[in-house]
């Protein structure tokens, strides 16, 4: 009995999760669109949740707005633009590619290229150091002395 209760309690959060953001008065295709659009939009009150996940009042209102606009026959693009016009590009979880976000999008790529260039250069410099600088006579003599010492110890 105890186990059953525990199991039911564990299942409880799942039920809550499923209830989230699922518009009931839309057909399945439109409902999926509503959830997809909502998942792209940041909840400005909570900031680290999308409006699909959040239960903040504003998120509820904005979900309603999304549902209504879908019913009114708006395209996904139009609905997202509606939000951006009012709340700014910050509402988009995936920032658009433009001049202000250039560094954001290309920064990691530039860093990776820089790292590869630095890596290749280091490797080449090392090769050059080994190949282009043969041992001097003194070094060779020292090396032979050490090797001889080792083989004597082993022998």
């Amino acid at each position, binding site marked *: 009995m105890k186990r059953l209760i525990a199991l039911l309690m564990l299942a409880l959060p799942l039920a809550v999760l499923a209830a989230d953001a699922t518009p009931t008065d839309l057909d399945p295709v439109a409902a999926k669109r509503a959830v997809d659009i909502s998942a792209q939009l940041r909840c*400005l*009150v909570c*900031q680290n949740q999308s409006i699909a996940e959040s239960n903040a*009042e*504003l998120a509820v*209102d*904005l979900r309603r*707005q999304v549902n209504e606009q879908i019913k009114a026959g708006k395209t996904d693009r139009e609905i997202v633009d509606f939000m*951006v*016009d*009012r*709340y*700014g*590009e*910050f509402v988009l979880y995936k920032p658009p590619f433009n001049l202000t976000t250039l560094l954001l999008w290309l920064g990691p790529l530039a860093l990776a290229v820089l790292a590869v260039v630095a890596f290749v250069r280091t490797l080449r410099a*090392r090769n050059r*150091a*080994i190949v282009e*600088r043969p041992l*001097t006579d*003194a*070094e060779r003599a*020292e090396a032979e002395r050490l090797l001889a010492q080792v083989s004597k110890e082993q022998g």
Partner: protein
Amino acid sequence: MSEALNPDGVPPATEPKSRLRFLIPLAIFIVLAGFLFRGLFLNPREVPSPLIGKPAPQFSLAQLHQDDQTFAPQQMQGQVWLLNVWASWCVACRQEHPLLVELAKDKAVPIVGLNYKDKPDEAKGWLAKLGDPYDLSVKDRDGRVGIEYGVYGVPETFLIDKNGVIRFKQIGPITEEVWTKKMLPMIEELRRS
């Protein structure tokens, strides 16, 4: 042991150029620390409004005290005015309120209240208790006009010019400092133009 030989077979770093290389991580650290330090003083809740410089969205809503009368922003054409979003359930509005009452007493600027997602009775009670600084308040019961104005927290205040263009948006309570340093000079300038 001769100094010229080290385990990697790399010649020892003698040129000053390679010595400077060791300063690169320090330089990167300083730049990074600079950015992070700056970040300490940024408020992530202050999202710049895309509505600045755009015409204030139109609406027509019933007034809080005179339910049979509506208000629309174009009625304020020719005046510099404030649209203040407030609610009786909003704690920060309580904090802001004395300043608004003060401004209203001085007739500093017309203030229209957008009573956001509130119950009319509670809103009226709140104003009766704390003072009513608004020329009038309108009821945005379901928050639709709030969405048009990109409201995501209360209080928010929009400064609107004679031509109905939004010039400034204050997110959160108007403080004494914001009023004297930013809003008042802007209002005076907008009145002259």
